[in-house]
């Protein structure tokens, strides 16, 4: 039941992915990655606040975009990561995949919450309301629900090996379903009411907005990777700890 039980296969990927090896190589990576993230954020924020024009109609609130869009993008990207990890759990039965999936869920929920929050903050000045049943917003909300459900599922099963496989089933069902949800919601909204509500469209953006946006996108994505590594490490340590304590209880 110990995580290191999985025998490392010859190919390099699974050698890296072996929990023991992972703990080895991930530690030295953390610090430089952290520095890089910090640097990118500094740069991106400087651009965002001092070196990009205020929007002619949205005014300074346009700067919310630099936080909003990266979070919105991560809300979907993280789920992708979880889906891949779930494949790893079900197909290759890889313990590290379990850990990755478990660690990613709260992060994904967090980014999605931020996307929702910044989005609705943005909505207030632009549309005069915190919430609009706009397709994109709604699908993000549903995605948020899915994240929370998955987190609750993780917490509901105490045997982590079982939990991993069951959650993996749900995550994959979700992975098939989320595109359908996204599509259906867009279709729904445009069906029920005329496209009167302004739907934010990217391409119309001038480059002066795009550069900082791009930097922030990269910064947030790297931030996610950093947090993922950290929480995976803590999760692995936690599991080693309880399997030891459980043995103790049992022999008592």
């Amino acid at each position, binding site marked *: 039941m110990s995580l290191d039980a999985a025998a490392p296969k010859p190919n390099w990927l699974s050698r890296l992915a072996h929990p023991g090896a992972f703990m080895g190589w991930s530690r030295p990576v953390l610090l430089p990655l952290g520095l890089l993230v910090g640097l990118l954020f500094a740069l991106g924020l400087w651009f965002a606040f001092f070196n990009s024009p205020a929007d002619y109609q949205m005014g300074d609130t346009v700067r919310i975009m630099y936080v909003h869009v990266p979070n919105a993008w991560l809300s979907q990207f993280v789920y992708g990561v979880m889906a891949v990890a779930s494949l790893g759990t079900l197909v290759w039965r890889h313990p590290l995949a379990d850990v990755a999936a478990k660690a990613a869920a709260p992060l994904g929920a967090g980014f999605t919450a931020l996307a929702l929050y910044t989005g*609705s903050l943005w909505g207030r000045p632009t549309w005069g*309301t*915190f*919430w*609009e*049943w*706009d397709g994109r917003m*709604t699908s993000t*909300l549903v995605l948020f*629900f899915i994240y*929370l*459900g998955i*987190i*609750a599922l993780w*917490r*509901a099963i105490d045997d982590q090996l079982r939990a991993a496989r069951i959650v993996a089933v749900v995550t994959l069902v979700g992975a098939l379903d989320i595109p359908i949800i996204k599509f259906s919601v867009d279709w*729904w*909204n445009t069906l*029920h*009411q005329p496209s009167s509500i302004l739907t934010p469209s990217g391409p119309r953006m001038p480059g002066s907005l795009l550069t900082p946006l791009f930097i922030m996108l990269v910064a947030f994505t790297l931030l996610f990777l950093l947090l993922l590594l950290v929480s995976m490490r803590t999760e692995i340590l936690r599991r080693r700890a309880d399997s030891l304590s459980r043995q103790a209880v049992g022999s008592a």
Partner: protein
Amino acid sequence: MSAFAAIVARELRLALRGGADALTLVLFFVMVAAVVPFAIGPDRALLQELAPGIVWIAAFLALLLGLDRLFRDDDADGSLLALREAAIPLEAVVAGKMLAHWLLTGVPLLVASPLLAVLLGMDSAAWGRTALSLLLGTPALTAFATIGAAITVSLRRGGLLAPVLMLPLAVPVLIFGAAMSSGGDGSGGAALFLAALSLVSVAFCPFAAALALRVSGE
């Protein structure tokens, strides 16, 4: 710990440990209400107008559909049989379970209500009224749900029977609740009715439910 407190504590423990932790409870209500617009369309004005009704229907369905879980496990694992010999009368046991059930449904519903308000575009006044109406009305719903659960157990047939038995009883709660939260001129009276209804049904429920449970053994 007093016997009554012990029962409440156990119910809470079981619910919060067994799969449905507090997060899930709140989430559940948010979802049930958030799902409605998908069916009736995203038209803000309409949603705003219907919001109180939607919240109340969500509460109503959530409470009634979840109810048969209330005594089923205790019946299956022999706890119900043992509880007949408790140091407190079966009525008190039922009251304890009812209180716990309310804490596990009514309270999360209240917690969720601000979110619902945002999603359904209620203004703060409307939200206040709705929350208050829930506070006044959910005890009555819980009481009816408890009776329904007891009957389900004693008939040894679960499923939707209990909700069906209880729906007619619970309709007045829904009416007054919706009336109060939509805040017409009648809303003051509705509030009174709700409060009265809750008091009466909560006082009455333990006896009815305990009666049903006593019969259930045979």
